[in-house]
């Protein structure tokens, strides 16, 4: 039976068509002028104001870390039996947020979803900044951060090696690999854009800097061929990382025997949670970016709509995971598991459990409604809720399981200190400082990638790429 394109095709109704990826007339030249204007011009007053706020937060964080350094971990709330608290909560939180960027750049690239092109650059940058924030915590929580190099297996006078059977060491390798790969991926993507900036700029200093950073990129087709192959391979490799890095982080908990931690569903559950938290952060930042940088024609409501759908999907996966945890707590007939689960909803920290469930499962259900997916107010409400909910989820997992495990005589209440909060605030300060600087120094949209998907960008050969 012949079913090629000559067969009578059914017309596509309006409701099934997807909106265009760019609004209005966008040409490669206008794209460059719009996006590359930002690194080329001085930032407005509001930017300096915002930077002042983030730098203050960062300063508070640095002061608190300095205090921890000089006084010791006793400055934090960590104490028996909750030996891991804000330090690990924040670490897992920030590593999770990084995953959205990698998913957008790598996985969506593999699926050939062209809408990723406009947001991939920013998302990848957020990944790198988030991982930088995350890495602070393993370093400072060891008590003697200047000995952190002991985490690496180097030949030493004591003939000692690291313990490869510890998930904490797997973390070291995983997070370092993640950072290196993300950095490499981000930088490779930047090269053609920096080449554009190099050829546009009139300032000698900038031209020198961009020339060095662009490595002499000239857009040769033979180069593009290898470049595209490298990009595809990196996308495939980074996809593996999205799954593995947060799974390795989940192993920190799942390999133990603490009730509520040793659940086999932790690896995919953590990965889903990471994507969930990350996308929410991306949505929040992109809403601000598209408004303040007048990029509404490139970061369109379609982009936000699709990202909100991903957030909704992840919320459903989280709901499944919570239900499986609850079911297993009963099905296992294990009184410790059961107690641990009941603690989440009715214990001392039950309020944290309810914040988690409401922010992660209930509130995001609003995104079923198109109205909420296209309204700034609702989507920022949901995204903020998710960020808070995901932080509290780590709190629930870590503090609730630790504060009441097997031995009732060891049950205690955990109270964080102002230093704990100060450091958390500091990481937000670091993250947003880096975001602000990035927004004015490098192209926030991958102009090269977006140029490639503009209508008329490719020679016509009658093929579709969806």
């Amino acid at each position, binding site marked *: *039976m*012949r*079913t*090629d*394109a000559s*067969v009578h*095709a*059914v*017309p*596509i*109704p309006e*409701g*099934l068509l*997807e909106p265009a990826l760019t609004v209005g007339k966008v040409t490669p030249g206008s794209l460059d002028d719009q996006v590359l204007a930002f690194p080329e011009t001085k930032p407005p007053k509001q930017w300096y104001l915002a930077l002042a706020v983030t730098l203050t937060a960062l300063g508070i964080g640095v002061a608190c870390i300095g205090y921890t350094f000089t006084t010791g971990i006793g400055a934090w709330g960590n104490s028996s039996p909750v030996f891991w608290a804000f330090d690990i909560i924040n670490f897992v939180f920030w590593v999770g947020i990084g995953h959205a960027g990698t998913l957008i750049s790598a996985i969506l690239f*593999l699926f*050939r979803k062209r809408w990723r092109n406009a947001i991939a650059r920013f998302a990848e940058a957020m990944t790198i900044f988030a991982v930088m924030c995350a890495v602070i915590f393993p370093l400072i929580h060891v008590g003697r951060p200047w000995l952190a190099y002991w985490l690496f297996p180097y030949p030493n006078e004591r003939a000692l090696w690291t313990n490869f059977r510890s998930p904490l060491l797997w973390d070291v390798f995983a997070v370092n690999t993640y950072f290196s790969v993300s950095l490499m991926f981000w930088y490779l993507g930047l090269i053609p854009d920096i080449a554009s900036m190099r050829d546009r700029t009139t300032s000698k200093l900038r031209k020198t800097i961009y020339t060095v950073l662009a490595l002499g990129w000239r857009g040769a087709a033979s180069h593009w061929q290898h470049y595209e192959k490298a990009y595809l391979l990196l996308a495939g490799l980074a*996809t*593996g990382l999205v*799954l*593995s890095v947060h*799974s390795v982080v989940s*192993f920190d908990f*799942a*390999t*133990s*025997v603490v009730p509520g931690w*040793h*659940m*086999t*569903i*932790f*690896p*995919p559950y953590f990965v889903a949670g990471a994507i969930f938290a990350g996308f929410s952060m991306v949505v929040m930042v992109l809403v601000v970016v598209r408004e303040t940088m007048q990029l509404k024609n490139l970061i369109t409501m379609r982009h936000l709509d699709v990202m909100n759908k991903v957030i909704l999907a992840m919320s*459903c996966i989280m709901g*499944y995971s919570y239900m*499986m*945890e609850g*079911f*297993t707590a*009963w*099905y*296992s*007939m294990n009184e410790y598991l059961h107690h641990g689960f009941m603690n989440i909803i009715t214990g001392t920290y039950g309020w944290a459990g309810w914040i988690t469930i409401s922010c992660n499962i209930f509130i995001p259900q609003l995104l079923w409604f198109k109205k909420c997916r296209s309204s700034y107010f609702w989507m920022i409400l949901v995204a903020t809720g998710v960020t808070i909910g995901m932080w509290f989820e780590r709190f629930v997992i870590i503090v609730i399981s630790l504060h009441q495990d097997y031995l009732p005589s060891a049950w205690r209440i955990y109270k964080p200190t102002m230093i704990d909060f100060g450091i958390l605030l500091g990481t937000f300060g670091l993250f947003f400082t880096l975001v602000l600087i990035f927004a004015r120094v490098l192209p926030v949209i991958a102009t090269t990638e977006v140029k490639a998907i503009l209508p008329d960008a490719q020679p016509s*050969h*009658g*093929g*579709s*790429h*969806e």
Partner: protein
Amino acid sequence: MSQQKPTPPILLGAVALGAAGVLGTYFAAGPERFWANWVLWFVLMFTLGLGSLFIVALEHLVSAKWSVPVRRIPERLATLLLPAIPVGLIALGAVPVLYPGSRPEAAHHPILAGKAFWLSLPFFSARTVFAFVLVVIALAVLVGGSLKQDVSKDPAFNFRARKFAPAFMAIFALVITLVAFDWISGLTPEWYSDIFGVYIFAGAFLSGLAATALSLLYLQGEGRLEGVRQDHLYNLGAFLFAFTVFWSYIGFAQYMLMWYANMPDEVIYYKVRLAGAWRAITFALAALHFILPFFALVTRDAKRDPKRLRRVAILMLSAHVLDMYWLIFPALGGSPRFGWPELSFALFFLGGILLWIRGAMQKGEDMPVGDPFLREGLEFRL
């Protein structure tokens, strides 16, 4: 136009021979052996059908265009769920024989007593029937609607399917978890693993993909499915590769976590499967379900090579059978059983499945000709 080819007598003969062996198993090899095989093949049919239906729903959920030309194949494969239902209802006979939770002794077992009501035959059956009802509804909407659209050419189906797809995902999550916990891990009710639903999902999805690929190549070989190119094959191959890795990741995560914590009530599951002859089967599973397909599909060319894909698809389906066997048969105790009972059941069920699929391949057009995105799908280029 569907082609009416005569059913090859060898298939019918195999099914008849298998049927005789199946009956014989009950009386000669004992009810436990009979029921273990019956449950195995029920689970295989059900996961294959459900996995195929998942593919269909996923395509609607993400509004994929490239897959429209090949969507009819998993739709037809999903109809396997229909004969799976009577097979499943008969399989309920296995519950008192193989599932310790349903027996009266469970009421006194320290772990099972609290959930004996859940594991008992009436509640088990109720859940199974409920799952079947949901599955029939999903089939009617997704597959029935698609077949109707061939004739009506009404795009209303696309709207309906897109709206139904998220609901299907919820149904799928529930049903696959039920199958995993009730039918498979219910054989060892003192054991539990909350990733088990995800593990069975990975296997089901993979088997659906492999069956889709195999059917696609078979139809292409028959000269049907004109317009489907290597670009489409590549995507299918890429999914096979990606989800092979995903299955391995889930399988390894479950194993490694249980190995690491070494809790006696969890680790017993693996100790049984690493003892004696089962050890060889475990290694074979890792080799056939992960290592071989991984390296067979890792290169770009391999993913779009029809010969390679055909071999890997057959390998994946065999590995899925081995996976389910590895999960279910240790319930019989002792070393892995493989003899004329297993062969008869294989002949009977495999023959039956092939007969059914042959019939399904005649239903409706080979491509969803009523779908407005068919043209775009055919024009897809990498």
